[in-house]
């Protein structure tokens, strides 16, 4: 039993694929009601870390605690996940998709509220194979919020969205934080992380190489440097400018 200070806590998490470590013993805790950003270049181990936290894949070593205890059967009832690359059942309408997923949970918010929150009114009767990539992102966000989760994992939630839709997603995330929900966010948009996250962990080569609030990281790594004073500068300074993958 761990302290309940963190809604989610990982300790010495490891995972290897074909003997090659993808995650090499990372530890951190996420306080409830905050937005935690996990950043890193492609291949840094972010997706593997998040999928272990989501219970999608099993870790090779280490432990994960949810609300101070090992995850139980109720974990999936209390979390919401938005994957980036996920197709939906082609011949279901958006509304039917939400209803179907709603039935999976013991309790869920009214479908109409999710439709309104994610601005799906114009496409609610469209089949999933007839909606655009940006609209699908909003449907996937809606699915993640259906069960009014305490903990939400958002994997690049604004990828493929136009600036208006991105601002709207940011508003939704801020609204969730206000309601005391916890968000784990992975993104390649530094501006997004800087705007939304209370804490950011930067990963590279399977390890967390820096962690702190956006303000702290900028102050620590950009002070006196000839860089723009923003998170992107911190990121590039820590992970380098060479291309990955």
């Amino acid at each position, binding site marked *: 039993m761990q302290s309940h200070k963190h809604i989610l806590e990982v300790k010495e998490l490891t995972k290897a694929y074909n003997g090659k470590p993808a995650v090499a013993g990372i530890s951190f805790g996420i306080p409830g009601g905050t937005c935690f950003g996990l950043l890193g270049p492609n291949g840094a181990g972010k997706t593997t870390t998040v999928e272990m936290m989501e219970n*999608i894949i099993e870790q090779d070593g280490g432990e994960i605690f949810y609300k101070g205890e090992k995850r139980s059967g109720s974990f999936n009832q209390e979390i919401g996940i938005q994957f980036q690359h996920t197709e939906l059942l082609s011949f279901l309408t958006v509304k039917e998709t939400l209803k179907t997923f709603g039935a*999976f949970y013991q309790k869920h918010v009214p479908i109409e509220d999710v439709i309104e929150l994610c601005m799906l009114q114009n496409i609610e009767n469209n089949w999933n194979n007839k909606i655009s990539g940006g609209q699908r992102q909003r449907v996937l966000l809606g699915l993640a919020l259906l069960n009014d989760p305490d903990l939400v994992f958002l994997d690049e939630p604004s990828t493929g969205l136009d600036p208006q839709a991105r601002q709207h997603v940011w508003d939704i995330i801020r609204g969730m934080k206000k309601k005391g929900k916890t968000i784990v966010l992975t993104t390649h948009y530094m501006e997004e992380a800087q705007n939304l996250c209370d804490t950011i962990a930067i990963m590279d080569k399977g390890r967390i190489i820096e962690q702190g609030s956006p303000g702290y990281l900028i102050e620590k790594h950009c002070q006196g440097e000839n860089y723009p004073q923003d998170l992107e500068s911190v990121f590039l300074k820590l992970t380098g400018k060479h291309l990955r993958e």
Partner: protein
Amino acid sequence: MSFKRMWALFVARNYEFIRDRAGFGWNILFPFLIVAGFGLIFSSDANSPFKLGVFPVSPGPVAIEKLDIPDRLKHAEYIKIVGFETRDEAMDRLLHHKIDLLIENKASRLTYWLNDSSPKGKVLEKIARESIVDERIFLGQLERNEIPGENIRYIDWLFPGILAMNIMFSSLFGVGFVIVRYRRSGVLKRLKATPVTAFEYLTAQMVSRVLILLFTSFVVWFGCDLFFSFQMQGSYFDIFWVFLAGTLCLVSIGLIIACRGTNEELANGFINFICWPMMFLSEVWFSIEGSSDWVKGAAQALPLTHFLSAARKIINDGATLSEVSFEMGVLLFMSVVFLSIGSFFFSWTK
């Protein structure tokens, strides 16, 4: 286990199947086309098992009565006469097994050619030779008998095979291939992130597919029966249970294919690897009676063999459910084994 979740998945899968008009239509149309095609073939003389070439004849339809060949060959059942203008053309067809025997028209004696590697050619040779023998020599030498009762037409024998074949393809592609595609596209991963369990998901998929296949089989049966008036010797209640057990077993094989992997090409190849031997060894199209023992033994290991055996016993011979209890037992046992394997190895993700 939650029935609410299973029901939601069941309804969603049914919508997916019914709204995919191309797939749904093909599931109904394909067996219709096969049965209709065979109906046409077997109602015309194109099904004559022996093809006798005759040369030289004038171009156009062959005026059989004007041919100078033995009369008994002209009027023999199951022999189709094909005319050729030249000997070279006819010899080419004989060489390529397009005809079984070649006879020269208006020759002073019965002059014929055959392809020594053609079994049908050798049988037709005997028929041709017999055609010039005076039939009176058989008097007192032979006793001819016919089987009593109503004959089973080939189409009646074939029909259960066509239905079962359609169920087999639809089970394997509709479950195996579709779930592999869902895994590749991340649909399964999305479901894993919910409280849905593998048991709930697989049960919903299986029940949906079994019910859909029973429904489409009923529609095809009803539609085909309007045109061909199939002979049903047994009980519709009994045949329902055989189709249910057979479909359950074939869908269970689909679940084994679906349990792992994201490569649709590989799944496709694997399904074909399973389907084609079953199609030939399980007597969908023709009997394997007379084949070697190992072929018959291999056929007994295939669920389609037992499915078809039970279906034909009821449809063609009027057997009761208790008389096909062995086949039913094998189908149910195989279903349990396949389901256990499929469930044990099932993975949501890549």
